[in-house]
């Protein structure tokens, strides 16, 4: 489990951005987590509360934005969302589809701050 490492990175990024923006307080951190990012949101929430203690983010809430796994289907010539992360076949036509367009993200998308 490296969620505590990740939570520390998130806090570092968010504090940096909040200070740059002159924030007095951070209410919410919006985090994009791709379905294939290999991150457990439950463990991340727990780690976030640990990592934010005694920082500008103390008391802030972590909001996870789930990013679906989207691949390119070379047969349908379109992007398709995969319902499962371990079955890389186009749900419409059954063709193997490995070209990932979305779903690996692990990104601090935005902050809700008070200035």
């Amino acid at each position, binding site marked *: 489990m490296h969620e505590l*490492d990740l939570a520390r990175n998130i806090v570092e990024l968010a504090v940096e951005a909040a200070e740059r923006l002159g924030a007095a307080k951070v209410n919410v951190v919006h985090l994009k987590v791709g379905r294939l990012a290999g991150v457990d949101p439950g463990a991340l929430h727990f780690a976030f509360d640990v990592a934010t203690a005694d920082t500008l983010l103390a008391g802030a809430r972590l909001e996870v934005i789930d990013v679906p796994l989207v691949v390119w289907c070379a047969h349908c010539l379109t992007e398709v969302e995969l319902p499962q992360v371990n079955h890389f076949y186009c749900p419409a036509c059954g063709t193997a589809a490995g070209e990932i367009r979305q779903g690996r993200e*692990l990104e601090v998308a935005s902050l809700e701050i008070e200035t």
Partner: protein
Amino acid sequence: MTTRIVEVRAGVLRKNDELARALRTRFEEAGVFVVNLVSSPGTGKTELLQRTLTELRESGQRAAALVGDLETDNDAQRLATSGVPVRQINTHGRCHLEAEMISQHLDSWDLASLDYLFIENVGNLVCPASYDLGEALRVALLSVTEGEDKPLKYPTIFNSADSAVITKVDLAEACEFDRERAIAAIRSVRPGMPVLEVSAKRGTGMAAWLADLEARRLAWRQGRPGGAST
């Protein structure tokens, strides 16, 4: 007090990604082909690497290895018997290698004098997937003793790999290993993934593994910036 929402859009692994990019450039400039081996603990990374390093050295190739473990330098000692330069990285509780640990362990190694640098990652099928080490090739290992459906349970890491190696094939029969099912599972999480099968103990499949590595290394040398001429 006013409340507002501001965009940040910063990758959580940004620092590691930046360091890994710098490492990749350094490896490209030195012309050393870097291979990152990932698997569960006990899949046979060290065994395969020990034999690989020995055979490469005997065939006149210049290789070196970094090996990550939480504690002990047992694996480095095993690998050192191959006669090539080896360094242990102890992560002291960290469950994966990071780009920074790699750069900290390259001191005084003349990368330009190497053909191959192997990195044995910490045995773990989750976290190493997210950490780019600047490698040119990531190989995921799966042993016949750990179940054909491992890739379906840990899709992120198998998806992140460039090729897969099924290890300990000498034990396949005793484990009633279903080869077709394992290959199907690997390709279900990464369509078209090349799969090799080896027994590092017996030597089965070693020639094919070494030939595949060399073909990839030569293709990489052609393709890298500034490429074939150096």
